[in-house]
């Protein structure tokens, strides 16, 4: 694949894409066919999944009862049976811990990711959303692909961004524009986001990254816990018949973008944010922080 440009991309498949995922009943099996874009082949390298947070504690109820099997482009499954997804890694691929897919799996344009979903619990799974993370492949010149100058110096750097007055429920995406400062280019490598010390619930926040031509880096908005990672402060995950706090998340393991996104000085980058917290009675409008983590590049 040396003659192609890799571009970070996440395929998102949830209740907005297939209404059956809004509530997966106990013992129900659902077959999904996630279409790959006609624009570019997709190389799958990691996965994640989630359900909506419950209305009491910040828990994704019964997520440990989500079982999957998924197939490659030839519709050959990667397992002979349904696999309980928490057997594969911590936190279902959230908070900076994507479930790795190795070797990578190649999907041509207009192929499908075939997925079978099973709920083996006693309660419905609410708003199941699956994330297939990897890269799209483009011919050289087909998409903008900025890169480093011939000679440069660099400095680790964070651009803190704040989505001001993010409503409890947004009608469509709230457009936000990040502008790289004029002193240096910026290489975006990771993200952190969240508001763990808010006194009111901030649970269902989704972000879609887009380049300066509004070409998106995902097929739909990605939940902040998946895209950005965070320490998971306040959240608890099902384990051993109870719920426990996540361990080891946070800025040491941010939501990584691979490959990194090179943003020249003075260029813009979009991050569209949606929020859907109407189910949480005490939710209020908040200022929502997002950290763009990476490196400044100074041309010499």
């Amino acid at each position, binding site marked *: 694949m040396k003659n192609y440009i890799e571009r970070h991309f996440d395929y998102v498949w949830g209740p907005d894409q297939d209404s059956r995922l809004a509530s997966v009943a106990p013992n129900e099996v659902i077959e999904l066919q996630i279409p790959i874009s006609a624009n570019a082949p997709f190389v799958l390298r990691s996965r994640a999944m989630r359900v909506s947070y419950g209305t009491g504690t910040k828990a994704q109820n019964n997520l440990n009862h989500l079982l999957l099997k998924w197939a490659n482009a030839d519709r050959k499954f990667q397992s002979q049976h349904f696999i309980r997804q928490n057997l594969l890694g911590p936190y279902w691929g959230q908070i900076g811990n994507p479930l790795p897919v190795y070797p990578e799996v190649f999907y041509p344009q207009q192929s499908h990711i075939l997925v079978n979903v099973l709920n083996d619990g006693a309660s419905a799974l609410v708003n199941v959303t699956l994330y297939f993370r990897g890269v799209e492949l483009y011919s050289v010149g087909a998409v903008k692909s900025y890169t480093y100058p011939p000679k440069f110096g*660099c400095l680790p750097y*964070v651009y803190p961004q704040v989505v001001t007055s993010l409503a409890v429920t947004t009608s469509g995406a709230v457009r936000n524009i990040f502008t790289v400062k004029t002193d240096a280019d910026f290489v975006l490598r990771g993200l952190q*986001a969240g508001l763990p010390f808010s006194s009111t619930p901030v649970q269902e926040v989704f972000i879609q990254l887009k380049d300066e031509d509004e070409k998106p880096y995902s097929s739909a908005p990605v939940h902040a816990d998946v895209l950005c990672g965070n320490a998971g402060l306040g959240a608890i995950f099902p384990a051993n018949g109870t719920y426990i706090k996540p361990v*080891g998340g946070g800025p040491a393991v941010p939501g990584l973008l691979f490959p990194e996104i090179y943003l020249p000085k003075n260029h813009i980058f979009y991050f569209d944010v949606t929020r859907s917290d109407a189910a949480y009675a005490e939710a209020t409008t908040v200022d929502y922080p997002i950290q763009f983590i990476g490196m400044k590049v100074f041309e010499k």
Partner: protein
Amino acid sequence: MIYRPQFAYVTPPGCRDVDFIYYFDGSNTPALNQNFATGLDYSAPTGGIPLTLEQDVPFFWRGLKVSLRATLTNGDPDAYGEPNFTMRLMDNYFNFLSDDMVPAEQYGFPMNPLVFNGQLLTGNPVPLEPEIYCPPGGVLWLFLKFPVTADIDYFPELALYGVKRFKECVQ
């Protein structure tokens, strides 16, 4: 600069790298020997807290970790606080490492939960990529801003991870 894999740093010929941690708290940095729960504000660009490095050899700074001692019991850090504050750092050459103040739990506090299996402060240091060269005797600057909290006392700590680089014949 040429391409190299991240974190795979090479020690130059004739030198020896030694793991080193700079640790700053109220015992060696007077400005940190205060209860920040009163809402202390060290966020002004000219009002940071100086962190002085040793004068022997250069330090190559590769990671950091901040924490928040919640109580002082005979000097024993027996409890830690949630990182509800913002922070910013400046290197020895007056380059800020962020565009503004950043929430600590998304910048340098990878320690959720505060207690795990009875042990305090889990989590790895936050890597700085690339490393930052710090000359002998250099001064880094720390900027902090805390909200007012009534129920607990807060004393911040900062650890900088990296290597000291010795010439082979010096150490």
